[in-house]
């Protein structure tokens, strides 16, 4: 009898508990989208089906979009992104601005139509103005014209800029800007070259 009562109480409690859990997590539209996408896509070239799976940053920024995500989970994700940043092994932030210009112009990389043997571009001009000579620039990101000239090239500025190229989502979690270092889109040397494009006094960005 005693155990029967306990069982009844337990059964009665189950729907309440699970109902509360569902309410707390909201209908997870990321999970719903993923289940449809898994049957709607197929691996091609270098783009495998694993690319459909979200990491924590992607999930956080999708779940509430177009609204900004809540503060508490955001702080954790931002901290994790910041922690993933690796500074240049030799301590040198600046490479060759000419190579950086080519990387900024190059739009291919990581698409299933791209040659995986070829280094990815940064495609900076897709979203940013940099060199005044290149008028075909996008406006999703701010203008970076005279980036180094306006800011100088002190250590803290170099470090901050390196961080932002490496993982902008350690600063603005849901920014449109890819995490070029953390996601392995650009190599350390390529990021150095883009840094030089931004800071070198001879770079057309600073003319």
């Amino acid at each position: 009898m005693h155990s029967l009562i306990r069982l009844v109480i337990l059964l009665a409690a189950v729907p309440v508990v699970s109902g509360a859990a569902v309410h707390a997590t909201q209908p997870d539209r990321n999970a719903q989208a993923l289940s449809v996408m898994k049957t709607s896509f197929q691996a091609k070239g270098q783009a495998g089906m694993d690319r459909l799976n979200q990491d924590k940053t992607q999930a956080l920024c999708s779940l509430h979009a177009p609204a900004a995500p809540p503060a508490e989970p955001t702080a954790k994700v931002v901290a994790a992104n910041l922690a993933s940043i690796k500074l240049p092994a030799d301590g040198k932030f600046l490479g060759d601005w000419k190579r950086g210009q080519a990387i900024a112009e190059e739009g291919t990389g990581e698409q299933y139509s791209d040659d995986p043997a070829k280094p990815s571009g940064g495609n900076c001009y897709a979203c940013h103005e940099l060199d005044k000579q290149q008028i075909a620039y996008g406006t999703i990101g701010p203008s970076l014209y005279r980036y180094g000239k306006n800011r100088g090239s002190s250590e803290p500025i170099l470090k901050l800029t390196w961080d932002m190229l490496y993982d902008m989502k350690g600063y603005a979690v849901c920014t449109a800007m890819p995490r070029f270092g953390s996601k392995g889109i650009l190599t350390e040397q390529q990021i150095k070259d883009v840094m030089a494009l931004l800071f070198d006094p001879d770079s057309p960005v600073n003319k």
Partner: protein
Amino acid sequence: MKVKSRQLMWWLAIGGAAASSFAASLVWAQSDSGSDPVAEYRAMFGDDNPAALWVMRGQGLWQEVRGPKHVALATTCDLGMGKGIIKGAYAHLPRYFADTRKVQDLDTRLLTCMVKGQGLDQAEILKNRFGDGDRKSDIEALAAYIVDASQGVPINLPMQHPEEKRAYELGKAIFFYRAGTHDFSCASCHGQSGKRIRLQSLPDLATAGKDARDTYTTWPAYRVSQGEVRTMEWRIGDCFRQQRLPELKYGSEAAIDLTMFLAKNAEGGKMAAPGLKR
């Protein structure tokens, strides 16, 4: 596939002959036409659009008795308005069809009509789903013809059936779904108005409004850079390629769900397709 002037003259000649039935107008996604490199094409084409050729070919395919079942789409194919009725059909798609128990867009509904209705081979049709020069797509031709018959008709989705509502909600979730090496979602490029990538204007497709209407109502479209008429299936698939995701399957649920979301945001906009795009 570049547009050559020799081909252009041919288009103009044929376009003139077909002018009575062809009402496609030039519609441009770009708002800053001053810096629009495609503007040259507008001047070249005048009031004409190479999609006229697809419209004519599609009309033939629609009316012709074809396939093992010896029937014409014009007498058997129901695009949601009744058998053979094409006027306004595109403006009310995607929608739920009781016979397939699925929400379908124009491409997948045409496929149903050709395979189930006419008995044509699905694999054969899909092999040429995206035309390439001499390898012509029947679906793209039919889509051009059918959408042309909706010129001026406002987008208005039934959105009554639970599956239609479900498709919209899933389409919205997919639109905002960030993934892949670059963390992109559809909203990364199409979440705000007045921005551009390189020189290309980016319409805001995340919310109902003018951008969403102007964009959706001008597809399917003759794509100058492709030299072909393309439907939304192609357009969405190519966006996912640039999003660094795997390949979107043609006619898949995600493609239709997303089309439903885009169509809903375009409601009230008057169809003006086939359009003409860069």
